[in-house]
């Protein structure tokens, strides 16, 4: 894969620390349209923290974020959304007591005359998008706490897809899923990639990374060990980067 031109996203020299501990230490990462970049590392390596600077959950202490080559100000999740950045969190970030439509539109509800919520319109849109993503989805009028892990993940993904995400952040999207549902998410990632989205995928499972990602960025102790094109390296190379912080010859 040739990545020329302006990257879709560029995180440049990002640092953030909590109480004196450098969670992310001068890390730079970029992402091109139609590309899946895996972020790997131990628990606590700083990958989730780094990506939360892009999704607006945290604000970096230093460094800058460029979207399509232009400097972007992201101070909160709302700002991130205005740049078409959507995030699917490890914890799913759904309000358990609300139904699928309310969760899908949370923070961006459809309102009708007089500023009142148009629940029928939201339910109808939710039915359409979920029919595309997960045709087996039926439970529209129950709180999402009554759904299975895969169904809940469908709702979270539908939220990103519905609002025309250009940049998608997935934080261990398959961690809570069974094999069949994991397969569904994998197919969806391929589909979204074809549509030209840029996807950051935070993942522990090396096999998923090898299968789904174009490039992989490995982090350790808040620093970037290196970036590799996954088709030029082996599982062992990546494992070596994660565990020993050893940079293979082909990494940059």
């Amino acid at each position, binding site marked *: 894969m040739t990545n020329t031109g302006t990257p879709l996203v560029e995180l440049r020299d990002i640092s953030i620390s909590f109480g004196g501990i450098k969670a992310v230490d001068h890390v730079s990462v970029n992402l091109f349209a139609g590309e899946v970049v895996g972020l790997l590392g131990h628990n606590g390596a700083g990958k989730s923290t780094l990506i939360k600077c892009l999704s607006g959950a945290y604000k970096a202490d230093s460094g800058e974020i460029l979207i399509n080559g232009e400097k972007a100000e992201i101070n909160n999740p709302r700002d991130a959304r205005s740049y078409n950045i959507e995030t699917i969190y490890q914890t799913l970030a759904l309000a358990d007591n609300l139904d699928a439509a309310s969760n899908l539109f*949370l923070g961006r509800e459809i309102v009708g005359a007089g500023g009142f*919520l148009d629940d029928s319109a939201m339910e109808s849109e939710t039915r359409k998008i979920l029919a595309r993503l997960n045709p087996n989805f039926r439970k529209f009028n129950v709180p999402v706490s009554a759904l299975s892990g895969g169904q809940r993940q469908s709702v979270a993904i539908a939220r990103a897809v519905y609002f025309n995400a250009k940049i998608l952040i997935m934080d261990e999207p398959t961690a809570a899923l069974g094999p069949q549902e994991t397969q569904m998410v994998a197919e969806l990632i391929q589909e979204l990639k074809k549509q030209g989205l840029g996807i950051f995928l935070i993942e522990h499972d090396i096999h998923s990374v090898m299968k789904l990602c174009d490039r992989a960025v490995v982090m350790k102790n808040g620093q970037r060990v290196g970036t590799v094109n996954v088709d030029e390296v082996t599982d062992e190379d990546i494992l070596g980067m994660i565990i020993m912080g050893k940079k293979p010859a082909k990494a940059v």
Partner: protein
Amino acid sequence: MSDSKNSSASHSEDRRDGMVARFLQGTELDTRMLGMLGALALIWVAFHVYGYLSTGQGIFLSARNLWNLSVQTASIGIMATGMVLVIITRNIDLSVGSLIGVIGMLMGVLQVEILPKMVGIGHPSIWIVTVIVGIILGAVLGAFHGWLIAYRGIPSFIVTLGGLMVWRGAAFLVADGKTVAPVDATFALLGGGPYGAVGATGSWIVGVLGCLAIVWILYSGRSARQKHNIRLRPVWGDLVVGALACGTLIGAVLVVNSYPWPKGIVDAYAKANNLTVPPEGLFISHGFAIPVLIMVAVTIIMTILMTRTRFGRYVFAIGGNPEAAALAGIDTRWMTVKIFSLMGLLAGVAAIVSSARLNSATNALGNLDELYVIAAAVIGGTSLAGGVGTIYGAIIGAFIMGSLQTGMVLIGFGDGSYRSIVVGVALVLAVYLDNLYRNYIK
């Protein structure tokens, strides 16, 4: 609450079970609400029958008692609708009773000692200014609590426990513990009483408008679903719901209209208006009391707020998963300020109603109300774990609390100790039954 027992008992009778299930599905009525209404009806009938058996006359289900019950419930009911929001977002407000005290005292001093000197006693602006000041004061004090909770990170339990003590003390200091009375004559109407009710014609107008509103709500809900091609309720389901709602409303009109003014008031009224009272007496209906109409208006507005607006949706989202709400771009801190401000505003409205009903302001006004308000919300199905609750539930809860209290008085257990025992047991029992119900539904 009681229907879980009924439906499990009827499991053997498949046909009947099928009919009940079909009825519930067709009408989309909330079984929980039906259970609460059933419990309320049970309490009413039990007190009535007990009164009948022990004293020979059942007075609980008399028009007079039901009218008084509705007036007594108004203040707690108004605040309970706000407490629902507070509890849904996993907070608590212990200060509302003391807020009533301090706001009531300040309004009392304002309308008895300050405003009459400026515009003259009985001037029509007095009650309007007093009401506006009371409501704004409540909203500001509530917002202050909310700010301490959201932006200073002090738990709501602590902030409002402090508020409970501070505002009760402040209420005493406003007039050095003196009672301020009588309040402005127009203001006093907001608390009910024979003059503070809208009469027979007014009640019929309320009833007819209410029925038209019910029909319109059902119709517009139907057309919205039709437009987006979402499963419709069967026509008979809508008809049944409409008939039940309108029937209840008309029934309420008939009850309040059958409660006449007492003879003394009629005579005074006739004298003032140069009417001759016929020997058999004049029948002048009370009609709906103004504080009850205020409670109804608050209930409707709060229901719309919670079910039809973004604000309400965000309240539920924060209660269900505060982190998810924040990640969805909701400013959860500012929401907390708004929710507590709304709670304070409603405490202001309740202060108006209860000081007007008392025709005076005392520093003990609203004492222990916070506990009744919380109990009403919880009996009405608001979960202390957050995320779950309804406005109508809180109102039914307030009526259950009020009915237990009045009922105990009517059957001769007016002594405060019995009353609080019964109310306390009812609170614990209601939450226990609710747990059983939720497990059964799952």
